[in-house]
């Protein structure tokens, strides 16, 4: 049923997710075996100010190899499975050669994990050139983050992260209760980059880490994708904070109803318009688009309230400089 494991581009993946979602509505969410191939590879992405940054990332492909990561597949669309699926993830490590013996820092061994998911017993690591298979039953719907915990966080800072969505039995709902129904779904994978670290991930002194690019789904404004939703539609915002910073996202012109944190429904959902997502945490919030005009021609702004809305070493000159600002974690909800 699932073609996810073989998709290579985001466009294809989106189609696959859509078709999978349609298929769910006419099938029972019984335990189906799902296999996903992830390739930990390296590559480069380009920031809005044309700075090229070295990154590592998980690419969904069975044909794993080095230098596969690029602007079109970083950080990759969310993995999507149904509650009850028995999921097998094959993680192949095509990172650059380990500069030290495996286990000694710096260490390019992949340690694949999904906080909130209990894997079946088995090996956890994949050294460079090797593959590890991790299996689990997707027992609880929700929004999860997968990552590599290798090399004391350096691998995650390089980009080895992604989102996993476990879907409930009913289509177009985030969770089993009907109160989590939505019309439009968007995953907001939040992260940041210090290009100086990315240029030397094995040797950089992390005391001097200073992020200068602030990303939603691997992109900084104005490269971020807009969120298309019409008036009255319920937009499910799946926040996944893969960064190191507790991140506050401000939604202007509407409140969002926070229904879940860390893939668990809240006993007391609440309305927020400046919501802080802890580093490593996920949140699901549903916002209903007002029928009235947004505050700007661009739509309803959704942006980082810690004002990480600049790109690069943005000097603050006497007047705004479009080369640096606006940028960062900023997007809009618009028709």
């Amino acid at each position, binding site marked *: 049923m699932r073609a996810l494991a073989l998709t290579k581009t985001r466009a294809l993946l989106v189609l696959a997710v859509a078709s999978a979602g349609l298929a769910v509505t006419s099938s029972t969410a019984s335990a189906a075996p799902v296999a996903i191939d992830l390739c930990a590879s390296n590559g480069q992405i380009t920031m809005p100010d044309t700075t090229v940054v070295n990154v590592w990332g998980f690419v969904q492909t069975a044909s794993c190899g080095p230098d596969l990561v690029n602007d079109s597949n970083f950080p990759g669309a969310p993995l999507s499975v149904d509650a009850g699926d028995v999921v097998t993830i094959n993680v192949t490590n095509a990172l650059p050669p380990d500069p030290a013996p495996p286990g000694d820092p710096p260490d390019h061994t992949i340690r694949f994990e999904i906080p909130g998911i209990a894997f079946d017993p088995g090996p956890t690591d994949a050294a460079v050139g090797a593959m590890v298979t991790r299996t689990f039953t997707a027992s609880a719907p929700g929004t999860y983050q997968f990552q590599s915990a290798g090399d004391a966080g350096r691998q995650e800072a390089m980009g080895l992260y992604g989102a996993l969505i476990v879907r409930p039995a009913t289509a177009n709902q985030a969770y089993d209760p009907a109160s989590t129904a939505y019309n439009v779904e968007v995953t907001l994978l939040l992260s940041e980059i210090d290009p100086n670290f990315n240029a030397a991930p094995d040797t950089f002194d992390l005391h001097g880490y200073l992020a200068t690019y602030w990303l939603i789904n691997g992109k900084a404004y104005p490269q971020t994708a807009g969120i298309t939703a019409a008036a009255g539609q319920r937009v499910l915002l799946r926040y996944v904070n893969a960064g190191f910073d507790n991140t506050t996202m401000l939604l202007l012109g509407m*409140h969002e109803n926070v229904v879940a944190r860390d893939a668990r429904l809240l006993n007391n959902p609440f309305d927020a318009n400046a919501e802080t997502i802890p580093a490593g945490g996920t949140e699901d919030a549903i916002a209903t688009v007002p029928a009235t005009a947004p505050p700007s021609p661009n739509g309803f702004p959704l942006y980082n309230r810690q004002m990480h809305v600049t790109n690069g070493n943005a000097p603050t000159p006497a007047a705004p400089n479009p080369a640096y600002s606006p940028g960062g974690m900023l997007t809009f909800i618009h028709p």
Partner: protein
Amino acid sequence: MTQRIRRLGMVGALAAGAALLAPAQAGALPPGAPKIGMVCTPGTVSGSEHTFNLVANTGYISTPDGNTVFMWSYANADGPDNGHFQSPGPVLCVTQGQTVVVNLTNALPEPTSIVFPGQDAPVTAAGGAAGLLTTEAAATNGTVSYSFTAGSPGTYLYESGSNISKQVEMGLYGALVVRPAAGANFAYDSAATQFDPSREFLMLFNEIDPDLHHAVETGGTYDVNALHNRYFAINGREFPDTVQDNSSVLLPNQPYGALVRIQPNSASNPQPALIRMLNAGLLNHPFHPHGNHTKEIAQDGRLIAPTEHFGESIGSGQTLDFLLRWDDVDSWNPANNPFPVAPPNYRNVFFKDGNTYYSGSPYLGYTGTLPTGTVTQNVCGEWYFPLHSHALNEFTNFDEGFGGMGTLLRVDPPGGCFGAPASAVIVGGSLKGGSASALALDDNVYYQVNPRTTTRTSATTVAQTSITVASAAGFPASGTYYVRIDNEVMAVTGGQGTTTWTVSRAQLGTAAASHLSGAVVSGLATDWYAGFAGVPAGAQNLKVTYKGRNCANTTGTSCTAIASNLPQQTVKICNWTIAGATGCSTATSAGWVTLAPPPAQPQSVGSTDVTSTWTLPNPATAYLGTGANGGQVRVLVHTQRWTAPSPTPFSTWGNLMKIVYDAP
């Protein structure tokens, strides 16, 4: 370098002080604004439209370490402020359903704007030009007008929507309060959000990296990613400036204080305080109230399932509403519920800088002795608890603590400040037993006063109407009064103040009789006053409480009951403006003013304690001594038994005499 900075800071402070003299400057608060608590900028209300005129401009703030920081902010363009710079921006208070109009004039050198996070009704703009997030006013005196219907009640920020990584950090933010239709004493349309409107507090947080502000001031460059905050403010001030009054002349551009002041919750003080907390800063702040949990009731202007906290982080851009009540669960007091352990010896206690908020007594409402040379900021035994960011680097001013994002919770004694008599003076009578300290507590210890007595210097005939006594001391110097010799009551109608009295015989149901030389002449009244010291100028809402009784005996330690013909008690207070201290020097001096009802006076007081509390009208200044009598309050208790049949001498027993007041 440090010295140079300090000197520059001082010059800035002096300049700001000079600006104070300008008549247009009104400390950015409306006339009559309270010294403590949230103050709204009035704006203009016309029908259902509420209009505010703001100007975005530049100015300087002072920090407690002597520095000054260049800021951008919104100011109130209307009088009396007329655009006087203030940080943070004016507090805009509107009522749900009103049409809110905010007219912005931009005096900054780059385009600016206002966004209203949490307002879900459309914000329409007139004038200006479309910007990234909202419509902007052009640089250098461009204008834009925003209008929206005030939506759900709650606490909201308003802030710049232009070049935000610079402009918000520079200070372009303020508080917007939407009040519910239920009334200004409700935070939301929910009965559970009722609060005491005289105890509504604002806590708006922000941080400052002076390097960015210096770069903006001097036209330099600055990397916002390298933000390193040095100052952490509540309502635009850093501790200890946060506990200064609203509109303090020391802080002409930072009008909003952050002292939180409450009284213990009780039947007469049932409503909690409301703290509206807003984080205009870029960091989250783990805010930590000492003393009591705070009850979080809303977030981002929306009610939540309430939770109680002694530590709660507020995220960047977030607003939280808290109800705060303080319960005296232990009710420690020195008389009947003392601490089970002795307080630490002062030799083991260090008072930093010889300055303290401690009263010298650990009991709420009591003051005590402090080591010589230690200055206390305490007024009347109130308690102070810190409220502060528990990110302790933020509890500093440029890394020196304490400072920064901290303020104090002041818990006043129940009903206000409590004063116990420092002295008790008998102006008509003699001491039977006890001392002034017996009046400090409601207990079984009494201050006891007998009527004055003297003796006849010769025998008295049945018809004699002029009698000579050994001494007139303690008897009234004017007015008719009664005395008793043996079984006869006489009225003294002349010669008061001398030893030769003109008397009317056989008064109040007694018969004229002859009396031996040396017979005891006893007054049928007692007069004494309690003196209170240290009441601060500006005290308001003064209340006097007296609890006491009268006993039939003038000797012995027990109280002999009075079943009938009860003594009449009148309690008076000294009005120092009538004749100064001499106006309240004797029992019949002109300065004594009978305390006005309720309860009405005189009162019949027998051998059962009677408790009465009188409230004085404001202003209370007339009842506070000045000059040599500075801080003194005097309360006179006059008790007489001048009614038939055949009144006998009695003793007056004072149990409790106290004053309570709201200290300034």
